[in-house]
């Protein structure tokens, strides 16, 4: 009786911990001269993957600076970066079929020195590679580029401050957030 109970528990535990039939290799035993076959199913699940990089190597968010030492109206000023410049941009997408992938920019919050503001539409982007030229437009969802299908898109941005408006002296700081998404 004790042996029967023990055996029953063992069988019960095996039943519980064994995964479903589909997860296990097939086995077959053929007696006699015939051969045996065993099949194995494989499954790889690929989720949607989006990867976005703006800036160069380092542990912090890069800063693009403009030294506007000329009078307003005397020409645009090109920026320089605390990281690599032109700024490397990489947008990688693993998506289903012909799905669209969109790179957007949020430049809705102006640069400020605490008392005065400069809107981001004073800054132009000149692109290379898979990117496109743009002027920031002070909006939260500016379309910077769209692609379809999976792929690894790379390019660079150069930045120019128009220096057309008159603003008081100071250091004006702001931030633009780039987002890669499936619209």
């Amino acid at each position, binding site marked *: 009786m004790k042996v029967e109970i023990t055996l029953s528990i063992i069988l019960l535990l095996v039943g519980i911990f064994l995964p479903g039939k589909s997860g296990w290799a097939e086995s077959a035993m053929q007696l006699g001269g015939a051969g045996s076959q065993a099949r194995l199913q494989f499954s790889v699940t690929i989720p949607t993957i989006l990867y976005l990089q703006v800036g160069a190597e380092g542990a912090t968010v*890069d800063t693009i600076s403009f030294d*506007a030492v000329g009078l307003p109206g005397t020409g645009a000023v090109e920026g320089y970066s605390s990281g690599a410049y032109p700024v490397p941009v990489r947008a990688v997408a693993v998506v289903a079929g012909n799905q669209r992938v969109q790179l957007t920019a949020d430049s809705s919050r102006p640069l400020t020195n605490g008392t005065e503001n400069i809107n981001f539409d004073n800054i132009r982007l000149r692109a290379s590679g898979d990117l496109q030229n743009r002027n920031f437009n002070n909006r939260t969802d500016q379309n910077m580029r769209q692609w379809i299908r999976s792929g690894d898109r790379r390019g660079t941005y150069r930045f120019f401050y128009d220096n057309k408006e008159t603003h008081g002296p100071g250091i004006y700081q702001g931030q633009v957030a780039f987002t890669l998404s499936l619209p």
Partner: protein
Amino acid sequence: MSKRNSHGIMVLLALSLVLGLLSAPVYGESNLGVGAGASPTARLNFEIRIPTILYLQVGSAGAGAIDTVSCDLSNIPGSGAVAMTSTGPNTVRVAAVVPGTQNVRLLANSQTPLSAGGGNNILFSRISCTANGNFTSYTFNDTDNQVLETFQGSGNRTGTYAFTYANAATDYYPAGTYTGTVTYTLVPCIIYSFG
């Protein structure tokens, strides 16, 4: 291409992308999003540095381009003011990038008189300026800090200067060519009020 092969290539592509990303160096602002709702974000800081800037142009633009304003007197003193002509344009421009409502002053130093040598001098107070645009007319006062204009805040002010020599009845000077220089200076200033 068979469906199986196509699927295999897709798998390889995806795996290579994922492995490539995992083995990539650590980037400052890079993010990976996985799943249908993923939307990775990467930020970039911007900084515009604007210093205090003062620009002054009287006559021709450019450093070292000093124009000469002159007149030839052909009439006796007291016969009326004589217009003077310049070797350059009569443009005057003051541009300032200053904090808030800070004042900017345009000063003239006409302290050293025109001289023909030999102790023969003509005071600059014999010369007047008729201004146009954003500027006001004046007569030199022979001092080193004559205030010609006071502007408030940043801005670009333009106008013209036209000069005349008084040639008044009292202006009897020995014949000769009298030369001298007036220096204009643009300075930021703070005006204190008392009372």
